[in-house]
């Protein structure tokens, strides 16, 4: 058995990155994710890596652009307002087909908002965020252990698709401590070769890392190439957890910390004899539309619970394609829905239907 560590989600994400051979981290402090850069500033020099505190999130994401372009496994982490500042750079990285891992430990917005947990960056994370035709691959852990696994995989996925991957957690995923095991140590030799990296044009024609295509025909071709990768992600990378859905009359759809709270609510409701199940998207992009399409044929009702005023609910409705009945319950601004609230809402759904 592996040794269990007791760590905050933030620290665990940082260690997971190191174990996935990330040796370069660029970031700017912001609550509630400061434990990530703090951990990296201690840990990376121990393994011959580089931690650099950038002058802003804008600089940080562009340092990632430079470092990823030079062939390194790179990561940054931030929280909502900082991630907003990075959007331009993220768009450029997609355009230049550069792999990187971006961790967003979400807090309440809009604007400076607050620092308490939130899921209100769902649209930004899954629908593009920056300008242009693109998507990030978005992974949403609901435990510290899962944050570790997904962070490690994020690096592989980023390399595989030459596309930024986002690990999207709410403030509690970052701040919570849980037992965690680090099961996997990757070896650099197993990473894909980056023949496109800018290491100096020695013995080969020069490489070019760019997102500029002034000729619209060329840009269209380029965008179609990026889209091909997105279609491959949709085909290959959907991950979802389902719980007790076979006999369920009501399905609760939630991700991240909210999904855990919902699990407790479902336990209580099942004890009361109510047939409640859950669908928990693990990849928010690509979204498990298929799972909801199947549900639409069985269960009539889906309750979507989020720490936002209704963002993932739109994807759930797309998945259901007009079938069934959807009800939404959300808290915002750093307020966290309790399992009592979810229980209450589920019972109301049974008696009242759609809210």
């Amino acid at each position, binding site marked *: 058995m592996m040794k269990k560590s007791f760590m905050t989600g933030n620290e665990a994400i940082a260690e997971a990155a190191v174990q996935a051979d990330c040796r370069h981290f660029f970031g700017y402090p912001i609550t509630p994710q400061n434990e990530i850069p703090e951990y990296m500033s201690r840990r990376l020099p121990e393994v011959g890596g580089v931690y650099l505190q950038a002058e802003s999130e*804008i600089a940080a994401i*562009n340092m990632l*652009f*430079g470092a990823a372009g*030079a062939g390194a496994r790179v990561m940054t982490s931030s929280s909502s307002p900082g991630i907003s500042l990075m959007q331009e750079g993220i768009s450029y990285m997609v355009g230049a087909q550069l792999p990187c891992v971006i961790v967003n430990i979400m807090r309440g917005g809009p604007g400076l908002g607050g620092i308490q947990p939130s899921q209100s960056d769902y649209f930004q994370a899954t629908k593009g965020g920056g300008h242009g035709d693109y998507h990030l691959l978005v992974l949403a852990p609901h435990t510290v252990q899962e944050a570790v696994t997904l962070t490690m995989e994020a690096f592989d996925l980023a390399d595989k698709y030459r596309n930024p991957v986002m690990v999207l957690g709410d403030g509690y995923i970052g701040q919570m401590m849980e037992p965690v095991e680090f099961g996997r140590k990757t070896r650099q030799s197993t990473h894909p070769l980056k023949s496109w990296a*800018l290491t100096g044009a020695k013995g080969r024609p020069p490489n070019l*890392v*760019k997102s500029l295509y002034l000729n619209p025909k060329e840009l269209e071709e380029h965008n179609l190439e990026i889209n091909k990768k997105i279609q491959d992600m949709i085909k290959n990378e959907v991950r979802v957890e389902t719980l007790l859905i076979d006999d369920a009359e009501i399905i609760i759809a939630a991700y991240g910390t909210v999904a855990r709270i919902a699990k407790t609510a479902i336990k209580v409701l099942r004890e009361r004899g109510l047939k409640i199940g859950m669908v928990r998207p693990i990849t928010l992009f690509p979204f498990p539309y298929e799972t909801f399409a199947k549900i639409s044929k069985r269960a009539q009702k889906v309750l979507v619970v989020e720490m936002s005023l209704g963002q993932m609910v739109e994807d759930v409705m797309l998945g259901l394609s007009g079938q069934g009945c959807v009800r939404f319950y959300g808290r915002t601004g750093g307020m966290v829905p309790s399992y009592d609230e979810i229980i209450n809402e589920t019972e109301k759904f049974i008696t009242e239907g759609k809210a």
Partner: protein
Amino acid sequence: MRMQGKFEKIFERPRTLRSTATHYCPGCGHGIVARLLAEVIDEFKIREKTVGVAPVGCSVLLYNYLDIDMYEAAHGRAPAVATGCKRVNPESIVFTYQGDGDFVSIGIAESIHAAARGEKITTIFINNAIYGMTGGQMAPTTLIGQKTTTSPRGRTSEEAGFPIRMSELLATIDGAAYIARVSVSNPKNVIQAKKAIKKAFETQINGLGYSMVEVLSHCPTDWHMTPLESTKWVEGHMMPYYPLNEFKAPKRRN
């Protein structure tokens, strides 16, 4: 009748400069600087380990002209991109090639912080007091009284503040090891400019810190002048405000 005897090659296209037409307007200073860069890279024999970063502006297509690994970066972010590259591969020689809008306006935070960190990169900063690529709008280095498409009555300090002297500003920063302002307005100045670019790269090669060469350049198209008039304008109008100087240089090592 054929000439007999040996001919010595005394002038050729630098290896690093590609044989291609540039997008620069006739009479533009950019092309001269691109050639100087290529010559310096050749002379140090570092073509195979040099990585360039060209961000948005007239600089952007430099990757078409230099036969080296290059990034095209977001507007203003070249020093951050270069930082990421250099931190990953410290043995690479990394330079940025930035215009005034890029280096002094939208990217001034990245410019100053790269210098402050003593990032071992080199910046070639083309100051032509105007936004060329977008069609002649006001730059942070546009002179007082200078007419542009967004200062049609001439820049006034009341409305638009004062032009920034970037070399003087960066020379105050400890992490900056080499800072010079040069011009490509006449052959003598071009020779001086090349010397400065060479020193800047040498500073990086020796790992001494950040280096930057500000090149006063002419933009006949957006200044609405002939090329000759534009070089005279650099000397008559820009140089009094932006004096040529080597503001900071590493001490000669014995």
